[in-house]
């Protein structure tokens, strides 16, 4: 009897063969758009430092149909990214004990959504006011 373990190669489309792996790759992929929006914000800072004219040009580019489309896409992907991370936050933090009992994962996730809503509302109020 010979010992000749056979190593199966990883399927080239491994992440397409399983819903769980597909969602993982989508979650990782959305970070590209989060990065893209961060780059847009950084660019804004640079334009602001360059003076009024550069800043006005930057704002005009953001308000153009292309600028708005890019931001809407980034917002959608960033929202998906945030939601997936809210879902796994309870795993990433040490158990929070209240009267010796760990706070249920669902409560922690819900807390994130509430905080998100409150902060978004605060930002909208500040901008609106």
């Amino acid at each position, binding site marked *: 009897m010979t010992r000749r373990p*056979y190593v199966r190669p990883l399927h080239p489309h491994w992440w397409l063969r*399983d819903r*769980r792996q597909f969602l993982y790759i989508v979650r990782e992929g959305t970070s590209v758009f989060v990065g893209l929006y961060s780059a847009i914000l950084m660019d804004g800072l640079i334009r602001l430092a360059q003076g009024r004219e550069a800043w006005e040009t930057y704002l005009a580019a953001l308000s153009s149909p292309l600028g708005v489309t890019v931001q809407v896409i980034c917002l959608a992907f960033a929202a998906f990214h945030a939601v997936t991370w809210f879902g796994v936050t309870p795993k*990433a933090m040490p158990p929070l004990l209240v009267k010796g009992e760990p706070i249920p994962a669902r409560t922690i996730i819900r807390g994130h959504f509430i905080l998100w809503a409150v902060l978004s509302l605060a930002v909208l109020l500040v901008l609106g006011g």
Partner: protein
Amino acid sequence: MSETITIRVLRYDPDKDAEPRFDDFIVPYRDEWVVLDALAYIKEVLDPSLAYRGSCHMAVCGSCGMMINRQPKLACHSFIRDYRGQLVTVEPLDHFPIERDLIVDQDGFIEKLSSLYPYLVTEHDKPLSEGPNLQTPAQLAAFRPFTQCINCLLCYAACPQVAINEAFSGPAALAIAHRYNRDSRDSGEELRSEITDSHHGVWDCTFVGACSEVCPKNVDPAAAIQRTKISASFRWLKARLLPGGTP
């Protein structure tokens, strides 16, 4: 003819086969049968050369982990009634070398686990006269869920990082390391940190979360790894910021 179900099994005989192939077996359908029963029927009645592992038949021993319709599952925990009317494809666990048929080579995992001091490490031997090591319910709760691991390796088969990085310690080994690190009787965290905090320790994990989803014992290795990442980060900072630290 009474109802049957077709089991498609990946076969590999290292003496004869250059690579694995599939064999189909038609077995009787029984409501109360699990996939492990169907495999036993194949071995006893249809083909005695079929090789597979199994023992307790009650999700305790962790021997019968395999891919069932591409999902890592315990064969003793998968009723064929859940696959009624379907073809049931049974393969050895993904991401492990195939030894023969449904049996995988677990040596790599055993080495990774052994390197993480998977036992209580104590600084001093405590004489029996000092009595038992008592723990409060809270101290027990801190690590108890992680003691449930049965080394079935379903988590390794679910993890894409295990497939991509051969050196990655992997979910079960890191969950077991976390289990001892969180035990109030243990003082081996520093020893384990040499591996857990390294690149091929917790940092190869990209938090896919599949390990915890497939775990038949609800061990939650993903949580163990993320929590170890936090401890590892504090250790890293402490070594650099505090006097006497060794960066």
